[in-house]
């Protein structure tokens, strides 16, 4: 029974965040536009040769999502900080980790939607041919994005409440994301080429392990972080 209560709290927090986001509109639209803009800039840096573009597509796509996503993570706490709503939120009964899980869910949907837009733009701009293993590629996109969101949401809980939050979040987050980015880029690249070396499987397992390890450890650590 207890888990059902927790799940209800998680949904409530996620719904609250998504509603605020939907009503303000400006947030999502500008972050997604930024993602596409960064993608275009990568196109200028790497193109116009079609072969070079196609080879670099996976890397450019993940970096665009990362750079735009960083803005989303800080935003998810900013609204509460500006309206002094974090303390009342902590006063509600129930486990603290549900707050984190709710924000995680909202951010996952937010970044997932942005990822869809960036991927569609990337397929067009980088002249990517959709491979036969596109379902596996979708799985890689989901696992990679989830990895970004888990640590992004966790570190934003600290960075958004410190001085210099704009620089602190990427400084803390990017080194931690090296394994996810390497795995997501390599697996996407492999699947785009039809996985001729059968290497994608190992990367997918790494992504799964990373997501699981950090989901559990951030859920455990969140209580210490949010209360301080």
């Amino acid at each position: 029974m207890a888990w059902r209560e927790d799940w209800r709290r998680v949904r409530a927090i996620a719904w609250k965040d998504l509603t605020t986001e939907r009503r303000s509109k400006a947030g999502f639209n500008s972050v997604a536009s930024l993602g596409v803009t960064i993608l275009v800039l990568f196109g200028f840096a790497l193109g116009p040769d079609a072969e070079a573009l196609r080879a670099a597509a996976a890397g450019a796509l993940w970096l665009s999502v990362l750079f735009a996503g960083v803005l989303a993570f800080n935003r998810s706490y900013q609204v509460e900080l500006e309206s002094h709503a974090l303390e009342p939120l902590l006063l509600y009964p129930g486990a603290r980790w549900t707050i984190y899980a709710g924000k995680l869910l909202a951010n996952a949907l937010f970044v997932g939607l942005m990822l869809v837009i960036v991927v569609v733009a990337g397929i067009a701009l980088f002249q990517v041919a959709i491979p036969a293993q596109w379902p596996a590629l979708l799985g890689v996109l989901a696992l990679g994005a989830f990895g970004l969101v888990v640590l992004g949401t966790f570190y934003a809980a600290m960075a958004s409440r410190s001085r210099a939050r704009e620089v602190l979040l990427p400084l803390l987050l990017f080194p931690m994301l090296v394994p996810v980015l390497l795995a997501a880029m390599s697996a996407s690249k492999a699947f785009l080429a039809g996985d001729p070396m059968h290497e994608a499987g190992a990367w997918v397992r790494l992504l799964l392990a990373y997501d699981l390890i950090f989901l559990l450890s951030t859920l455990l650590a969140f209580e210490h972080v949010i209360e301080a």
Partner: protein
Amino acid sequence: MTTLVHPLVVPRPRGWSWFGGFAFAFLIVSQVTGILTSPPDRDMGDLQKIMYVHVPAAWITFLCFFVVLLFSLRSLWRGRERDDLLAASAAEVGATFNGLTLMLGMIWGRPTWGVWWAWDARLTSTLVLFLIFVGYLALRAFVEDPQRRAQWSAAVGVMGAINVPIVYMSVRWWRTLHQVQSSPSTIDPHYVLGLRMNAFAFLFVMIYFIHRRYEAAQVARAAEQAAEAAALGGM
């Protein structure tokens, strides 16, 4: 707001100076021994002598990170301020040795591989570790409240420690061309004594550095508390 259950003890001045003198003297003796006793290596020639500084620096870097992990966990568990200050001291010393390891790796890599940077697993994961250390220290610099700083930096320290083996694995899969790990069992017996001595010398220097850094942090906290008390008393 800050109720201190364990007030800090201000360490007396010049407590460990003799140990610092000993550590640096031992370092000089070890380096001289290492350079004089080692014949030129079959493959690397005299470049092998860089091993006596590069390899211990790398070991000490990882040892420091382990100390950070240990005291971060203890600080989360017990909530005592001195565990937090010790973790922070070890992080700063670790970042110093980490930067040294990277520079020495590049100096070694240039003549042996022909490039300053090879993107191999160990060098690259050491660089990522350095960036994690930098993030940890930046977080501490940007957060003023001591309790908040302790909790947050402990969380960052633990997360970073969990990440290090994953980073290493991922970079190794991505690309690798490093020689087999140097440890006294896999290297030429001529070099064992020098390497061991230098490793201990670096260890002593590390202990001295952490101790002094911890002393500075303790005194600085005591000064902050005195300032707070003065401000409250003056109202």
